[in-house]
């Protein structure tokens, strides 16, 4: 289907089902139960899952395939966001032109930065991209937000103000980002007994876009271009002596992943019309690196899983405070309850970083291929198919999936 082989089609269908049904899947607990704290099916977080999923999938096209580790991709995310908000400020709240501009601007910037940075490889490349991103961050945070020439509005973030021109804004259109009148904030809430599910317009826009770009990513992975990118990673010298110019290949990958980042940035602004400079900081670039590795570098679905994992912790675990804990363990005798709460206390709420750090370590120690590897192992385990000594002497034949 769609030019994909059977395995990839299955993957795509699974991803499509997961994203479309996310409002159900992410809200498995009745909304008044103690476990409701773990529900993630509210619009903002669902949007974040797919947006960062897009970001990570794009990043993986560069890092997973060519092995070039960029530490500055957050700059493109930021540029995407700023472009979109400027589009809102100058023209209209319609998200389509805003997202288009995000992608284009991110593409242009990544072309420039990539062209320069790709003159080096390995760690030298990483540090070049990092330096560019940090410069962008510093400029956006203060220099470009001085009162005379305010492009970014500094620490507060670029916002739409009532006195902005918004040339094509008409009355009757929502005063928030919208798709031809359909506000990104509009949410239909379905109550089913104790459960409640949110269907949000913005989320579904993101989800559809994510499916499209995920499909594109599969195509790229399976294309001759994708194979060339893997060849770059494997042996650039051989590639050059085979008559291929590796530079345009890496640059193309860089620009494509930059455009994915810009798309993610544009979508972020479309969901919430504010563009903050922290989006460009090295920690943000580092986050997408972590997402990709955590999920499984060079795999198709891994980065999406990694993105979901990190965002889940950031948004769900950070909100579990002592009173929530007491709520959960109220059934225990008093002494026990306090003890359990005291034991869990350092790991949740303000300690969510600690849990995340520990999980990073556990995943990378026990699942060298990231979360995808965990999935594969589970599957093998269920199928009861333990790979045994009867294997013929042969190398790994599975291409990266």
């Amino acid at each position: 289907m769609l030019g994909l082989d059977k395995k990839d089609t299955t993957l795509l269908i699974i991803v499509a089902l997961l994203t479309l049904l996310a409002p159900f899947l992410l809200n498995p607990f009745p909304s008044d139960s103690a476990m409701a704290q773990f529900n993630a099916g509210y619009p903002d977080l669902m949007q974040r899952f797919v947006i960062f999923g897009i970001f990570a999938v794009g990043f993986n096209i560069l890092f997973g395939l060519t092995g070039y580790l960029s530490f500055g991709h957050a700059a493109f995310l930021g540029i995407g966001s700023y472009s979109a908000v400027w589009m809102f400020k100058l023209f209209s709240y319609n998200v389509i032109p805003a997202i288009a501009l995000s992608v284009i601007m991110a593409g242009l910037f990544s072309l420039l930065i990539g062209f320069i940075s790709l003159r080096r490889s390995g760690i030298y490349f990483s540090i070049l991209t990092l330096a560019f991103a940090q410069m962008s961050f510093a400029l956006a945070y203060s220099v470009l937000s001085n009162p005379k020439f305010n492009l970014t509005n500094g620490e507060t973030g670029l916002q739409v103000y009532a006195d902005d021109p918004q040339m094509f804004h008409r009355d009757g259109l929502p005063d928030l980002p919208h798709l031809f009148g359909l506000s990104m904030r509009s949410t239909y809430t379905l109550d089913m007994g104790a459960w409640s599910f949110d269907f949000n317009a913005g989320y579904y826009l993101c989800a559809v876009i994510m499916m499209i770009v995920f499909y594109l990513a599969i195509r790229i992975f399976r294309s001759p271009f994708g194979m060339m990118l893997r060849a770059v990673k494997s042996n650039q010298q051989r590639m050059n002596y085979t008559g291929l110019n590796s530079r345009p290949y890496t640059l193309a990958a860089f620009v494509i992943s930059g455009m994915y980042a810009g798309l993610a940035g544009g979508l972020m602004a479309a969901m919430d019309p504010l563009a903050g400079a922290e989006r460009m900081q090295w920690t943000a670039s580092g986050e997408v690196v972590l997402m990709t590795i955590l999920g499984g570098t060079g795999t198709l679905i891994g980065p999406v899983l990694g993105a979901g994992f990190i965002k889940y912790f950031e948004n769900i675990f950070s909100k579990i405070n002592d009173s929530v804990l007491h709520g959960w363990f109220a059934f225990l005798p008093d002494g026990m309850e306090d003890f359990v709460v005291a034991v869990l206390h350092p790991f949740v709420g303000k300690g969510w970083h600690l849990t995340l750090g520990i999980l990073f370590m556990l995943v990378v120690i026990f699942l060298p291929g990231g979360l995808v590897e965990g999935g594969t192992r589970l599957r093998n385990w269920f199928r009861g198919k333990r790979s045994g000594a009867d294997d013929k002497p042969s190398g790994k034949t599975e291409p990266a999936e």
Partner: protein
Amino acid sequence: MGILEVKDVGKRFGGLQALSNVNLSVKENSVHAIIGPNGAGKSTLLNCLVGKLIPDSGSVMFDGQSVLGRAPFEINQMGISRVFQTPEIFGDLTVMENMLIPIFAMRDGAFRMHAYETVANEREVIEQAEQMLEEMNMADKRHMHSAALSRGDKRRLEIGMCLSQKPRLLLLDEPTAGMARADTNNTIDLLKQISEERDITIAIIEHDMHVVFSLANRITVLAQGTPLVEDDPQNIRGNPKVREAYLGESA
């Protein structure tokens, strides 16, 4: 005029004159062997031909065009392919993919953005690769990760990759080193066959005299960076200077 004309090439590494005044002319459709003691500068000379090194002096012309100053991929696109002394293959890729890449490079040039096509649909390219694998006796290994090949197999794969590009000039740096006798013989046959059937010129560096004498029409002996003699195989074998400097008694 040969297809490859090397004139007065010199190359220095720090205090070491690795090549000096090398003149070499390789005739079209011939098999030209370059032999010589270890460290004579044979690999260095090849490096100067493919753009890995830039000679300090002299000129290198391929088919009437200078190759100096061109990037390696451009030189390859002109029709020169090279097999390295230590196998250079795409270790993370499968044998089949290794074979596809040079064919793509030959068909599409140095860069083409095939981002929306699918490898599996490139029937023609795949067929050519299959055929080459057959010829190299490696069809049964097509799904192996090439890093896991034994070394002889790696070398065969690399030769296959170069041949699949149908180059006009094929540079071989000790192609049969580490190859089993049987495969060496096969490779000799294969090289013979293609040099006869196709318009391929071969320049080969080899220490295995069996290979050299079965293939070469012409031999240059390099010693200490300069050509010692250039002659037909039978004359080289008897040349006392060559015997002393290189062949020893066992020739």
